């Protein structure tokens, strides 16, 4: 460990935003699943209710849970539709509150929606002013070449994470994941959320044009939320693979220990 050095990698605004956002995203996902439980069916277009065609449905026949996706029914007892002795779409373990309560979930959801939006705006402003966006997040010219990206994909597939000087910066796939969440995922969540508001549809009718109607917006809201949940799973897996103590320290204190270069023999 003698050749590894401690570097200051994560500045305070990034750390503050990261942890605020981490709590917020969990609250949004858990309360969102509770709200979804009120009507666990998704449609495309302007309207959609029980007698209309749903492209996705989570339900149950008695104690048998199922998910119907594009007309194909998949048994999901114990996970979705029926689990923990509860006949709701998403089980009590992952919803907030645990017991069926849509109005309380809405109060939480719309409070943390403001935290999400204000945090995002603050972070975006910081990333631009401090040049964090250009210095750390946007891909360098050489990183955008297909061969470079392909190499990064292969390295990830082999779980060969960057070491030494290369670990000083985010790698291309990591940058793309963060940019996807920041630049696409979160804005889409906010805009599709607003499209579901009847008052916003009157104030900003272009929202309905953008997302092809309120029920389409609700579907996109759900799909992007699933995407964010997938990001969290991969993100946490990468933290574990890269060394959870070191990674957590860098996100709490800002200080990160550069993992030593691989010995030359191991590099072959």
């Amino acid at each position: 460990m003698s050749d590894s050095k401690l570097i200051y990698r994560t500045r305070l605004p990034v750390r503050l935003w990261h942890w605020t956002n981490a709590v917020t995203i969990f609250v949004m996902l858990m309360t969102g699943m509770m709200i979804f439980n009120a009507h666990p069916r998704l449609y495309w277009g302007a309207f959609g209710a029980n007698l209309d065609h749903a492209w996705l449905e989570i339900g149950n026949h008695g104690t048998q849970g199922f998910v119907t996706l594009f007309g194909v029914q998949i048994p999901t007892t114990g996970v979705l539709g029926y689990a923990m002795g509860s006949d709701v779409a998403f089980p009590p373990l992952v919803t907030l509150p645990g017991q069926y309560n849509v109005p309380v979930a809405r109060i939480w959801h719309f409070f943390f929606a403001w935290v999400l939006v204000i945090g995002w705006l603050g972070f975006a402003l910081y990333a631009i002013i401090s040049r964090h966006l250009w210095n750390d997040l946007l891909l360098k010219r050489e990183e955008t070449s297909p061969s470079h990206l392909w190499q990064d994909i292969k390295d990830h597939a082999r779980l060969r994470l960057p070491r030494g000087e290369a670990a000083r910066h985010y790698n291309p796939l990591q940058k793309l994941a963060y940019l996807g969440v920041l630049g696409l995922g979160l804005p889409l969540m906010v805009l599709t959320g607003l499209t579901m508001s009847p008052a916003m549809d009157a104030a900003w009718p272009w929202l309905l044009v953008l997302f092809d109607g309120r029920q389409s917006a609700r579907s996109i809201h759900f799909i992007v939320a699933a995407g964010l949940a997938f990001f969290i799973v991969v993100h946490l897996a990468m933290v574990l693979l890269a060394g959870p103590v070191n990674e957590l320290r860098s996100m709490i204190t800002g200080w990160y220990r550069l993992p030593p270069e691989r010995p030359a023999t191991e590099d072959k």
Partner: protein
Amino acid sequence: MTGIVTRRSLLVGGGSLLLAGCDKWTTSPQTLNLLSLGEKASRSAQRLVGDRNALAPEFTRAEMSPVFRVNGSTNPRDAGYVAHAASQFADWRLMIDGLVSTPMSLTLPQLRAAPSRTQITRHDCVEGWSAIGQWTGVPLGLLLRRAGLSTNARYIVFHCADTLLGKPYYESIDLVDAFHPQTILAHSMNGAPLTIGHGAPLRLRVERQLGYKQAKYVMRIEAVASLAPLHGGKGGVWEDNHNYQWYAGI
């Protein structure tokens, strides 16, 4: 009693206990009071970015839901309402009173003969589903002007014939929504008189808010200065008894 506790039941039981503990905190009045600041901010922000007369989207006949489902109260069993329904609402009257200079009592034929607005709009339930239907009715603003709304009035309250879990249904809106051009008292739906399932003989349409504000079976319209003295004081049966927010624009 066998005394056998399976690992599964222990896990499920322990989990439920933990969740119940969490819920005690996540649903406590103090927590909800603080967090409902978010919905208050949403209301202010929505009023700020939208014109007070901004119209909810309207649709063509071809864009309507093939079937517009019914929900909430679909067949009130209240004796007075049952009698009105049996006589095709011949003796039914809409009362308009409270902070008005000329309280009114209107028959169904009078309301049907009054100037009306027809609109094809989307109905959004708080649960998440939407249905598009055509509504015809009298603009609420017109009736309030005729009744001589007092300058002290701040809210319009709709008292209904039905009950929800034993509580009389009522709802309320502020004057911005009351005088909005699309806010009507609908007596017809899809070109025919309202069915009982959809709120016969008269229901409110307040198109920039969610379904629970669209009071059905409206019997009486009351203009008030404050919602506090009415029932639970929060302006509606869902608000008083189920933690739903008074502003349902989101």
